[in-house]
């Protein structure tokens, strides 16, 4: 039993963070350069889940949490699952199927999209005539499909869990980002002649953010290991990780805006980017109560 990353994993995690900070900073999430996807490809993040790479889920979770911290493109999630369980495509957009049609995110330059269709993930073909609209998450455009395309289902039982795990990792990163941003601001911003983080009312908001992030990250690691070991209750642990990560991302996203006060509600500041990302992540492989309540007599 060891739930701490080893030296190689820490090195990979650090390298990912360093690259992101320089080349894909969070505050640029609403205006990513056209060539970003190619850069991500050349850095190997789109290929790391390929069957031949033999990278375990624990390592993936660490790297994706780091990518998620910088609000990396959500197509990394769908591409990672497509690369692992279907034919690798250059870029696979993210599909969210709802009662009123299908929403496609990060569709630029993608010919296919992956999402959950019922129990299993599936791939759909994208035409090139679709109209790109804005989305709540400003890092991605949105295409609305109203017709029902043919779905190529990926029926491996682990594929859906893989999508759930990686999007949980993204949410953990998002929750961490909001927590760090709030703490940094609370140290800097002065009112009543002292940093606002001096006041318990503000300090405790930040502490609760740290608790939520630590809880979600711990369960993420456990779930990744459970999936790696094909434990009988892996599906439960992945669901628990996703539930806690989504919650941490959403609640930290809101709290971060509160800590920032007036500037926090503006478009020019970045706190809203984390909150809006959290709202998108919550709809990727969402967790229903029965997944967490099942198998208890």
């Amino acid at each position, binding site marked *: 039993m060891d739930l701490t990353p080893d030296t190689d994993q820490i090195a990979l995690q650090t390298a990912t963070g360093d690259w992101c900070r320089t080349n894909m900073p969070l505050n640029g999430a609403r205006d990513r350069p056209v060539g970003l996807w190619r850069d991500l490809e050349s850095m190997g993040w789109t290929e790391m889940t390929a069957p031949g790479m033999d990278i375990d889920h624990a390592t993936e979770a660490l790297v994706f949490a780091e990518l998620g911290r910088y609000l990396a493109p959500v197509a990394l999630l769908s591409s990672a699952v497509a690369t692992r369980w279907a034919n690798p495509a250059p870029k696979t957009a993210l599909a969210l199927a709802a009662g009123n049609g299908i929403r496609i995110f990060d569709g630029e330059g993608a010919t296919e999209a992956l999402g959950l269709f019922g129990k299993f993930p599936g791939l759909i073909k994208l035409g090139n005539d679709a109209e790109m609209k804005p989305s709540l998450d400003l890092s991605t455009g949105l295409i609305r499909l109203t017709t029902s395309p043919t779905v190529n289902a990926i029926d491996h039982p682990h594929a859906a869990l893989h999508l759930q795990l990686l999007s949980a990792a993204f949410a953990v990163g998002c929750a961490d980002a909001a927590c760090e941003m709030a703490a940094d601001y609370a140290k800097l911003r002065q009112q009543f002649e002292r940093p606002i983080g001096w006041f318990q009312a503000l*300090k405790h908001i930040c502490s609760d953010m740290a608790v939520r992030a630590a809880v979600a990250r711990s369960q993420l690691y*456990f779930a990744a290991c459970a999936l790696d070991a094909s434990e009988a209750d892996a599906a439960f642990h992945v669901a628990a990780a996703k539930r806690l990560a989504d919650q941490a991302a959403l609640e930290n996203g809101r709290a971060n805006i509160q800590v920032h006060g007036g500037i926090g509600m503006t478009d020019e500041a970045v706190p809203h980017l984390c909150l809006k990302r959290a709202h998108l992540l919550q709809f990727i492989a969402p967790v229903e109560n029965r997944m967490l309540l099942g198998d208890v007599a």
Partner: protein
Amino acid sequence: MDIGFSDEETRFRAECRDWLHSNIPGEKRPLDAVDAIAFDKDWQRRLFDAGWAGINWPSEYGGRGLSLVEQVIWLEEYAKAQAPWIGANFVGINHGGPTLILNASEEQKSFHLPRILSGEAIWCQGFSEPGAGSDLAGIKTSGRIEGEEIVINGSKIWTSFAHVADWQELVLRTESGSKRHAGLSWVICDMHTPGITVRPIRKMSGQTEFAEVFYDDVRIPLDNVVGGLGNGWKVAMSTLSFERGTGFIADQVKQSEEIAELIAKARASGRIEDDRIADRLAQMRAEVAALRAMTYRNISEVVRTGQPGPEASVIRLFTAELGQRLERMAVELMGEDVLDFAYGDDNAVHDYLRGFASTIAGGTAQIQRDIIGERLLGLPKSR
């Protein structure tokens, strides 16, 4: 990263389980400290004789000298087997003993540690005072040095098991006129010394488990100081890291059983059809799982680096608040039956009322949040 255990650890787990299975007392532990003292001492003695006391304590003082992971396995199996709470031995085993291991002289260790492990000596804590609660550094109880003795005057409060204890880990002001964290000393106080008066205090759950302690010219040997005169704050704080390592494993296993029971109960009564109930139960089941993950992560960190990670301070707060949410849900599921509670009942209502202590004792939830904000996030100190 992995969540598996080695063959050796798995064998050790089976050994723990087997012994517990055939040795757990048939009768329930009495609730009040006075009624339970014989039970607590007897049970601790049996654990000690069979080699289960102080699994990761040094073997020269009666421990097993095994690893932290084995200690965790033992505590997990202990809780799963629903073995009795260690009760009056709690302070000695979880706090006083570990502090002695880290700070005491050879003589102090070889006298006290085996007595703590065998249940022969019951310990209590003397930290809080009527005027020094969350602001612990405001301690006023004084120790005047006279030759080879310390003469103690003052009072301590919320001292669990004071009325049945033999020894006390007592923090007092040994430098007159000193302020805050300076001038404090951590001393071993014999509770049978003349001049000590104990006034037991009943809790709102009905038990008499803690007390107020008064010191009126109490004379104890100067040799009983641990870690040097004036170093009391440092000595008292040294145990926190020890406590954070494994202190909450039993709670966490207990909570995983509690949530399973609550779900089963809600299912049987049909209350689970209420989305608000189902939502909270699902949430708590995920949280209980995460608590285990967080504990494992912390223990892995200690094994790897010798120190708990910065997240260790989160475990205590999260465990306490999650425990209260579970206790509250259990009472809600009881409905009007909650009204039948009488002092002495050992049931969910009792646990709920007693559970208010978990966000107050040993540092309130608010103090824990200060610690997390200041040490984990680097926010400025409010005090």
